[in-house]
Structure formats: C-alpha cells, structure tokens
C-alpha cells in the first residue's frame, strides 16, 4: 500500500516496502540524490532531512513512519527559482565544503538549529552540529553559522 507524504511541499506516494528506510525511498524511488548515505545507523548525519521541521537521520526512519508528514530535503531549501538561502550562501562565502559529501546533512542540521535558535551560542552549535565531516571542515561550519546568525564565536574559545 502506498505511503502518502509531502516532500519539499509536493505530495508523493511511496511504493517502497514499509520497512525501507526513508533515505532509500528518497534516493532510489524519488531519484533525489542530495540526501546522502553515510553509515546506515544514524551515526554520521549525512542523510539528515527535516520531518515536520525536526532534524532527522533518514537512514534510520522506516518510510511507513512518515505517512502524512512533511519532509524537507536539501533540494527543498532554495527558492523555486534556485535562489539559495542565506545559510547556503554563507556556506559558499566561507568556502566550507571540501569533498562536500556530508554537507547536505550539515546544512540541514544548521538550518534546523537556526529555525529554533536564531542566535546560537558556541555551546548551542556544539550540541546541534553532531554530523561527521571527515574533511575536517568544522571550523568553517561554525564560522558560517555564526555569520548567518549575526553572532560571533566566543572569544575565549
């Protein structure tokens, strides 16, 4: 039985078996590849999406759980004409990505943080940004979040 939900504002109907992780339904059924597979056990965050506004690691949520819910992926952040959000622009401004593979998830995590905490402290950022970046772009991720929030890093870091 199809599972009906919304992805980036559009109604979708997933045909996947109910236990299929949302990640694979998004990637293989909808063909939207911005959401990445990293670990499969919710440890790395590369697959982060928003479900009804909550940051969620989609590799560990069965597609059956999202019936009737509204999902936002990295593809859904920018405006319909492709205009990037201030957060995405800050990512370019600070030249954050290196290999870039984890950055969809990092940006989704940062967007969720800023939606709830528009002026995050370093401690807020530490607590919210738990996705792994093997290239080690963390210092620039922190700087990009502060710049878009108009906050500054603690001086005594």
């Amino acid at each position, binding site marked *: 039985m199809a599972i009906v939900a919304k992805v980036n504002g559009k109604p979708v109907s997933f045909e996947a078996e109910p236990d299929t992780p949302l990640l694979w339904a998004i990637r293989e059924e909808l063909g939207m590849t911005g959401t990445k597979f*990293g670990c499969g056990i919710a440890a790395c965050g590369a697959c982060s999406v928003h479900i009804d506004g909550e940051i969620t690691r989609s590799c560990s949520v069965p597609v059956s759980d999202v019936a009737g819910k509204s999902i936002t992926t990295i593809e859904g952040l920018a405006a319909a004409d492709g205009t990037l959000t201030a957060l995405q622009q800050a990512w370019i401004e600070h030249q954050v990505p290196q290999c870039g593979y984890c950055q969809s998830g990092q940006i989704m995590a940062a967007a969720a943080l800023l939606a709830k905490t528009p002026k995050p402290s370093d401690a807020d950022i530490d607590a919210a940004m738990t996705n792994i970046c093997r290239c*080690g772009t963390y210092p620039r991720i922190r700087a990009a979040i502060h710049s878009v929030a108009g906050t500054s890093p603690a001086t005594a870091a």
Partner: protein
Amino acid sequence: MGMIRRTFLIGGAALVGGGIFAVQYGDSSARSQAGKLTDGKDGHNFGTWLRIGEDDTVTLYSPHTDIGQGSNTGLAQMLAEELDADWSKLSVVSAPAESAFANVVLGKGFLSEMSGYPGIIGAMPMSLLGMVARQLNLQITGGSSALRFTGQQGLRVLGAGTRQALIETAAGRLGVPAGELTTADGKVLHAKSGKALRYGELAAEAATRSLSAKVALKDPKQFKHMGKSVPRFDIPAKVNGTAQYGMDVAKPGMRVATVIAAPVRGGKLISVDQKPAMAVAGVEKVISLESAVVVVAKGYWQALKGARALAPKFSDGGHGLISTATIFAEQDKLRAEGKPTKTAGDGDVDTALKAAGVKVIEADYKMPFLHHAMMEPFALTAHYKDGHLDVWGGMQDPLGAKAAAASAAGLGADKVTFHPMLIGGSFGRRLPMYMEIVDQVARVAMQVPYPVKIIWSREEEVSQGAYRPQSSAKLTAALGGDGKIAAWRNDFAQPEDGLREVPFFYDVPAVARRHFKQVSNQTVGAWRSVNATQHGFTTESFMDELAHAAGADPVAFRLRHLKPGRHRTVLEEVAKRSGWGSPLEPGRARGVAMVECFNTIVGQVVEASLAEDGTPKVHKAFAVVDCGTVVNPKAAEGQILGGLVMGLSSGIGEAITLEKGAVQQSNFSDYEVLKLANAPVVDVHFIDSGAEMGGIGEPGLPPATPALANALFALTGKRVRALPIKDQAKA
C-alpha cells in the same frame, strides 16, 4: 606495477631542480588522439589538456580528481596565469580516462623521486616519459602532487607555450613583429595600432604550430591569478544537493547490489546457501566471487537485507591467529633480532650511545591501524552491453580503474570506458590497486544484462579497509652534557620505511633510522600523509621527551638543533603566533610539533585541556606552513585545517584492531571520528619562502597528534606513547 605506483605515492623529495621545466605537450600520437576526443569544428586542442573554442571558451581537461582539496581550481589558476586567459570563460572538466590524457608530468615527477637520479630522468625525452605514463595508467591524484607537479611543471608551461603560439599567429595576421604584441584576458593586443585579436579567432591556426618548450614563466610579482583566493568551482553544487557522486549514479533498469567479503583478509569463499537471500523480496541474484558474495536486488535496502540473511562460509587464508597483539610481538621480535631492512642516517650512533657522560633515554611507541573513513562508502556502477563495459564512479586514478576493470572483465582496455564522478572523500583509499570493488563490479556486470551499482555498506567499508599500517618504534638517544642530542636511533617496524618521504631535519651528529619491515594479512593503504603520521608522532614525541630530560623548553630545545633555514623559521613563527610561553588559563597546556613531508614544512602548537571523562579537548591550534608558494590561500588554509582536524581525530580516538585475523570495528559507533564540538579554533599562517612548491593536501595532518600528546604531558606529566590517546592522560 603496483609497487611502482605505490612508490610514487610515498615519494616526497623535490623534483628535478634548477628550474628545468618539463612540458606536457604529449607526443604527436597522444595529441592526435586527444584532439579527436576534444576537438570539434568549433574548438582546438593544445597539448592534450587544453582546448580553446572559437567562441573564446577555454577548457582545462584536468588529469586530477578533485577529491575536495580544490586542486582543479588551483590548476585553472596556474593555466590562466601563464595563458592570460579570460577567467570568466574558463572551465575545468575531468580529462577522459583515455591514455592520451595520461599524466606525463606526474610520470616525470614520480620517476625522478623513485630513481633518486633526477639528472637521468631530466634527460629523458618527453615522448618516452609519456609512453611510461601511459603504460602505468598514470592519472593519479595522490602524493600531494596536483599543483606542485602537474600545475607547476605542466599547466604553467602549457599555458605559456600556448600563449606564445597565439602571439606568433597574431603577428602573422597583423603583419607586425611578435615583440610588439601583448596579451590580456583572452586577447592578443597590439598597442600601436589599437588592434586586438581574440584567442578564439586565433585558435585554429595556433593549434597547428608546434609549442615551444623553452618558455619563460611569469615572475610572482606579475601574478594576477596565482596567489588569489579564487572561489572554488565545485562548491556551489555542493550546497544545494546537485553535486553528483559515484553513489548518485542512476541508469535505466539499474539494479543495486551489496557485498559481504571474507572477514579475514586473504580468506576465500568456501560455500554459501543462497536461499535465505533469494527469499527476501526484491532480491534477484546472489553471485559468488572468489572471496566475497554479492547480492543483487531492486534497491540497496533489499540487497542489504538479502546479504544479512546469508551465512557464507569463508576460509581464513591461514591468517586466523593474527591479532593486534601478535603484530606488535612480531615487530618487537624483528627489532630484537637487530637486522634492519634499511638504514638511513650518518655518524656512529653505537659509540655515541656508550660515550662517557651522556644520558641515554629510551621510549617505545605504538600506533594502530587507521581507516580512511571517507564519508562516501564505495559505490561503482557498471554496465556491459554490446561488447563494451561502461563504469561510473569516483576514483583517484581513473585510468588505473579502467585498466583494473578491463582486467577483471577479461576485456581489452579499448572495450572499457570509465566515467569519473565526484568523490566523497578519499584520503588515499580510492586507488585501484587496493579497491576490490572495481574488480567486483566488473565481474558482476559481465554476468547480468542490466546496469548494476555495487554499494559497500559502512560495515564493509570499515572492516575491509586499506589501512594506515599498525606500527611501533623504539627510540633511543644520547643526551650530552651540553644539553644537545649526541646520538639518535629510531628502530621502527612497519611495512614501508618512508625514510625519503619524511626527512629527519634536526642537526644531530649521529643518526640511525632503522626500518624493520613487517607485514601482516591486512591491506596497506596510503592514508593521508602516509608514513609521515608514524614518523611525525615518534620523532616529535621523543624530541619532547628529550627536551624535558634536558630540562629545556620544548621549542628552545628544538631550536638548539636547527640551523638557520626554513625549519627554524617555521618553528619560530608558530611559537610567536601561539604566544608560546605566555600564561594560559588553569587546566590548559600547550604542545608543539613540526613535520616535513611532500616538501612542505608544518609547525603546529595546540592548546589542550582534559574533559571530565579524561579525554583531551583541543581549544586552539596554530599552524605555520612553508609550502614554498601558495596558489589559492583560502583553499590551502582549508587543507591545513582539515588535515589538522583529521590528525587530532585519529590521535584521540581512532584505531582498527584485529582479533583472529579479522577487524573488530564496524561503523562510526566503534571507529570514533572527531565531531565539531571537539574541533579547535585554528589559525593558519603561510610563509612565502619561494622554495620549490610543496604539497598542501597532506602535510597539515602529521604534527597534530604529537603536538597534542606533548600538550597533555605538559598538562598532566603523563606521556602517551600508544595511540589512540583516548583517556590515557586521565589523572
């Protein structure tokens, strides 16, 4: 061949000195083959890597894979600099994985590093070097080589030579002496007459000229593109989800497969009952390979469920008794037998150690296997149709991948096309000689009528790695009454020596660095900065131990053993920038380390404390870097801070351990990678020494771990000699 390419990867010595520049023009057959691939009726190929369109577009066919280090942007800056190209019309694409695009300059670079006789290589004709590069399938990214070899010795020369051909063509058209012509932003200009000719309208004729190898390169004072923090080309697609990696390949009718390989490296598949997998909805096929089982399904989840339902029987290849402990024991035994595989250094260490009045200090260090843990697990797609095999994915060596796929499929190289995709991290892991998935996907594709994508699970990725080898070292030194080191001996055991790659630069009268070659069943890989991680940790930890034994400040003690020169300057600068010696808030301490590799010297100071659970936290880090010349400061800074974070991550928490021949870790849950909360604020400073260009992708990593271990000693008095650090410095 594997050995040769491996040697290149670990090479780090300077290239042919004295400003002799090689030219990547290719021989005539390569040019003609490349031309067929890139020329249209509206564009023209120069020296295989460059195409100028009649519409003035300039395309660089990069022979490197941008793994995320920004090298393609840097290479474009170097080409544009000498060509005087119009930056707005320049783009970079991956060179086709065809032998015409083999990296001749890299061939020259690594052959000279390998032979130790650069004079001979320097005298070799480029056509011969090209032949060698093509035979070795050389299209590699590694050895921090892109800008220092391909850029500096290839693309700058190609840009300058092409610019000269364009000027000569314009001189003929305008009927003026070439000396009256200048170039800027994609045009040849004649100031006297005010006339200008676009590169696009000169390209067809200029491409028929033979390019001169004797071209003057610009003085750094004239640089317009090099040295600028140009935004990287690849970043916009990486913030909106449109960047396409090997994992993202989708083809009509494609199936997805996953793999279970023998848990003990060297083991073979004995038998597998396919039924439990075939009973999983969506599973279509179970394929047995020599040492792995592949489950092919409609999608990844079904393939994974199918694979997990199987209970394949594997042999252990005779390696079932190997463990972390047995490897260390074997290394100790080799040291005790005292027959080194290779020795480097000068002076009579034995006599100096026995001299009257010296204090002899000893320390033993242990380092674990490390996994690359790149964020994108292996994913390759292949389709065999009408006698031709297409392969899509991200590899550090597309030409090598093509050769490996052809060999596995039993096809000629002309029957295989490799399509390079973006790479989600590599750090040395994605090289075809130890990337079994190339072999797997080629073999599976030959057995099925549809395109098939193999994805390795993270569990497979972690437990089937090509690891930084487990290593140990016994360091012994004689400390003289003058507070200086009289003798230094490093007896280290691991697969490779890394002696040329990681120079010992301290001024010590008697040095013996003795390598005891020890191998296990594990696959050895080039892990970011390769052997510099082990040498960096042991040398810089022991320098710190000697400083304390001599009652000296660790920076002052190192300076005692450095003559004026680049190393001394780097150390003094990092001490100054970090406020070395100034008071810190309670519970914090500083540590210092300096390592040279890939012709780049990096000094680092970290400020660390201990968290309540006894694990270290680094608050601030300072890096001073002498890589000769910086092409793109912002991108280079990113590489140094990324390397530093990866170095801290590995030093604090990472280890691959073995039991009964098999890896015990399986995912990020038990292979602990540093997260943002524990990443320091990093200050990176470059010294523009004008020395021969060094690498930038790797040298930021090695000093981080010893700098931290040294800081922890300053903080707690506990010396951590076995990595990872974890909570060993706990009170």
